[in-house]
């Protein structure tokens, strides 16, 4: 353990060294990070963006802290992920101090491109260790890499590693330990040269950077080159004025040399140097490094088989979500019911018991019942990512999705949203372009999620005439309506509020890898957990609120009235006392609901929903559904006094069919039922979705907009169905 000179970041007398882990996407950073920290790390978010921030202490070396950065191909950033990686390294990010050193991970099977980033980082002069990962693949193919030569030429220690087998981890730890005994910065002069004019300007800016203390004398040249060739700089207020002045002056002077192609200079120059370097260090064999990948791609991206495999895989995904998850969901339902019965039996009757059983347990149960589906979905997505198939899916879908202005990477998030919009929205993180990502987030909840299914089933079974085929067609049409509306709205958004140049599609097709179960399960759990905690807490709060709105205000007179009825029944000792007591309880619940805040709200909005063919009782259902759609079914159960209701309750079906307007017209005509389903297809009635969108977009603006536009669409859709249908005399 090394204790270095006094420094601000001292904890308990011991200096903490922060080491950033940098590298290309998919080179094994997270695998090495996990191996070094022994999986003990905490995950957070960088402020303002939803790039995960993963930090952890090296096991056995508490003074060494690692910071896992998102993969990036270059220090000139294109996506929010890459921007984070660069800004952390340059110390331009609030809340994250500049790291004391870097662990650069390179993929040995793809040296030139990996070293492009590595050399950019090395030129910044930070103490650095290079982990040369995937050595197993290199050796299997019979290639030989001269590590010593590589280390010498890069002027940094290089440790060969095999991340997933833990090979080289001890040496890596030792090298990292040595980092913090070494000096603060290391002089590694750039070994390739630029055009004379450019070289001159780099020196100017570097001098300003050193003078203002923005960069160390050793790293100033590298930083100056990076900033000079960069079009989009990090937030400028982090630059000392001396530096930003000299930068703009230098750029001004470079502009008078139109023959000087800065982008070409910096990229081609670096690659030319790296080409020679790799040739000197690597003895290539005849064998192809990616033979298996090439063979697999001949099937998975084949004109016919590629699409067949894709469709089969998506079919399997759907099957697992809707069929395999069923038993688990049933188990959770049973557990929740058991818990409800337990509290009902063991607590004294009163508001506390009601709150616990009908509010907390029922409300949270409503949400965690979707947990198996979420887990399966995340398991699938983690598998697709870890094997490398995800990039192929985007490759296959790119053309189709671009018709509606979305990238191919939107396909899986949108598909996932059929199970639940929450994981779908979280899965949009793979989309680099912020506008594309936002458009996908905005339309994802239009996909018919599994929470809508109970509503569709109950309405179709209770209110629609016809044979099972017609009913199935109606159900499918609802799914179709959601899909078509989502794609249409995506086109509309991409042409209006989210308009912008179509970003170039430059995506690596990584080699296929055998997924490792532990890693996949870990990722699955990591993401599913968020659903449980975040959405769980908010759902809890809202369900308690909703419960209160339907149970209060209470009225002593009314309570006494029903109590008297109950006593009368008990006193009479009639044989059917039990069923009569139940009837009284139902009547009381309906009466209570009618006079509750929710009931009042239902009456208040009745004029608004009247044109849709709804009365205030449906209004209560709509209001309750804004917490969670499934609440519609249970609310209808309460409103129509059927006691415990689920979608299979025959008495609920009967009650719905018998429901009338005060003048005796039937309420739930087929037309109203279809209109209501259309409303549920289009409306954003899910607090968890709103909470997740708020988190993923880091603002209340987008969830508010989403709620507004979807409610507007839902209202217009239901209005259209009811008014046109009524005018034509259909289904009344």
């Amino acid at each position: 353990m090394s204790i270095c000179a006094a420094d601000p970041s001292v904890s308990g007398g011991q200096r903490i060294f922060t080491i950033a882990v940098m590298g290309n996407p998919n080179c094994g950073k997270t695998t090495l990070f996990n191996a070094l920290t022994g999986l003990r790390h905490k995950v957070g978010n960088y402020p303002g963006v939803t790039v995960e921030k993963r930090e952890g202490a090296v096991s056995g070396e508490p003074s060494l802290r690692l910071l896992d950065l998102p993969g990036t191909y270059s220090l000139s950033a294109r996506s929010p992920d890459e921007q984070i990686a660069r800004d952390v390294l340059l110390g331009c990010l609030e809340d994250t101090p500049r790291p004391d050193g870097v662990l650069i991970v390179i993929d040995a099977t793809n040296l030139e491109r990996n070293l492009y980033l590595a050399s950019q980082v090395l030129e910044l002069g930070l103490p650095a260790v290079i982990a040369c990962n995937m050595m197993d693949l290199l050796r299997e193919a019979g290639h030989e890499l001269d590590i010593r030569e590589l280390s010498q030429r890069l002027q940094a220690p290089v440790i060969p590693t095999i991340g997933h087998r833990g090979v080289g981890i001890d040496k890596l730890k030792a090298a990292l330990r040595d980092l913090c005994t070494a000096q603060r910065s290391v002089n590694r002069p750039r070994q390739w040269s630029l055009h004379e004019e450019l070289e001159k300007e780099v020196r100017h800016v570097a001098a300003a950077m050193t003078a203002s203390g923005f960069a160390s004398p050793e790293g100033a040249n590298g930083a100056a080159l990076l900033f000079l060739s960069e079009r989009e700089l990090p937030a400028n207020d982090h630059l000392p004025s001396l530096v930003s002045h000299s930068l703009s002056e230098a750029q001004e002077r470079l502009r008078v040399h139109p023959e000087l192609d800065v982008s070409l200079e910096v990229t081609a120059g670096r690659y030319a140097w790296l080409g020679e370097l790799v040739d000197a260090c690597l003895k290539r064999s005849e064998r192809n490094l990616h033979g298996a990948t090439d063979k697999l791609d001949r099937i998975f991206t084949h004109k016919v088989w590629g699409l067949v495999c894709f469709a089969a895989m998506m079919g399997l995904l759907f099957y697992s979500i809707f069929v395999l998850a069923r038993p688990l969901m049933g188990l959770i339902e049973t557990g929740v019911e058991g818990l409800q019965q337990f509290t009902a039996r063991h607590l004294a009757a009163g508001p506390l018991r009601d709150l616990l059983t009908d509010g907390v347990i029922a409300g949270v149960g409503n949400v965690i019942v979707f947990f198996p589906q979420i887990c399966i979905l995340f398991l699938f997505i983690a598998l697709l990512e870890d094997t490398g198939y995800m990039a192929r899916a985007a490759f296959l879908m790119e053309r189709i999705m671009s018709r509606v202005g979305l990238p191919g990477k939107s396909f899986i998030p949108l598909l996932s949203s059929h199970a639940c919009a929450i994981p779908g929205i979280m899965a949009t993180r793979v989309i680099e372009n912020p506008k594309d990502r936002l458009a996908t987030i905005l339309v994802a909840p239009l996909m018919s999620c599994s929470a809508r299914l109970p509503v569709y089933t109950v309405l179709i079974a209770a209110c629609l005439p016809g044979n099972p085929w017609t009913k199935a067609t109606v159900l499918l049409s609802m799914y179709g309506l959601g899909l078509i509306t989502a794609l249409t709205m995506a086109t509309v958004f991409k042409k209006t509020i989210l308009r912008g140049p179509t970003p170039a599609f430059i995506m690596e097709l990584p080699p296929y890898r055998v997924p490792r179960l532990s890693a996949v399960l870990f990722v699955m759990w990591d993401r599913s957990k968020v659903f449980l905690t975040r959405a769980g807490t908010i759902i809890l709060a809202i369900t308690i609120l909703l419960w209160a709105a339907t149970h209060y205000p209470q009225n002593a007179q009314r309570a006494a009235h029903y109590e008297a009825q109950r006593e009368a029944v008990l006193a009479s000792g009639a044989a059917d006392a039990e069923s009569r007591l139940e009837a009284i309880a139902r009547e009381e619940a309906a009466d209570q609901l009618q006079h509750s805040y929710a009931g009042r709200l239902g009456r208040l909005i009745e004029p608004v929903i009247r044109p849709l063919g709804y009365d205030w009782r449906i209004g209560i259902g709509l209001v309750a559904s804004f917490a969670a759609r499934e609440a519609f079914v249970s609310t209808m159960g309460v409103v129509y006094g059927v006691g415990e209701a689920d979608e299979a309750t025959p008495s609920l079906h009967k009650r719905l069919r018998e429901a009338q307007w005060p003048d005796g017209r039937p309420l739930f005509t087929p037309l109203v039922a279809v209109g209501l389903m259309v409303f549920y297809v289009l409306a954003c009635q899910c607090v968890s979705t709103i909470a997740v969108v708020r988190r993923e977009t880091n603002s209340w603006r987008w969830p508010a907009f989403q709620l507004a536009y979807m409610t507007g669409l839902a209202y217009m859709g239901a209005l259209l169905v009811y008014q046109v249908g009524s005018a034509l005399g259909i289904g009344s």
Partner: protein
Amino acid sequence: MTTIPLDSLNAGEQGHITGLAGAPDVRRRLMEMGLTPGTLLRVVRFAPLGDPIDIEVRGYHLSLRKHDARQIMLLRQ
């Protein structure tokens, strides 16, 4: 010898990059990904629906839309 844009190559054909045009940041990113002048590049296949393209460059696979590939000029080999 004349240069041709990348999207007019057939699957399986290869060539050396002679130059890149187009939007500055796309051009820059392509060069950072290793598509610098002089580099050998091979068209591996087209996606089932004709777009994007799967190319092999510096020992790895990259996919590009035809629209962006049009900006890359090659000398067919």
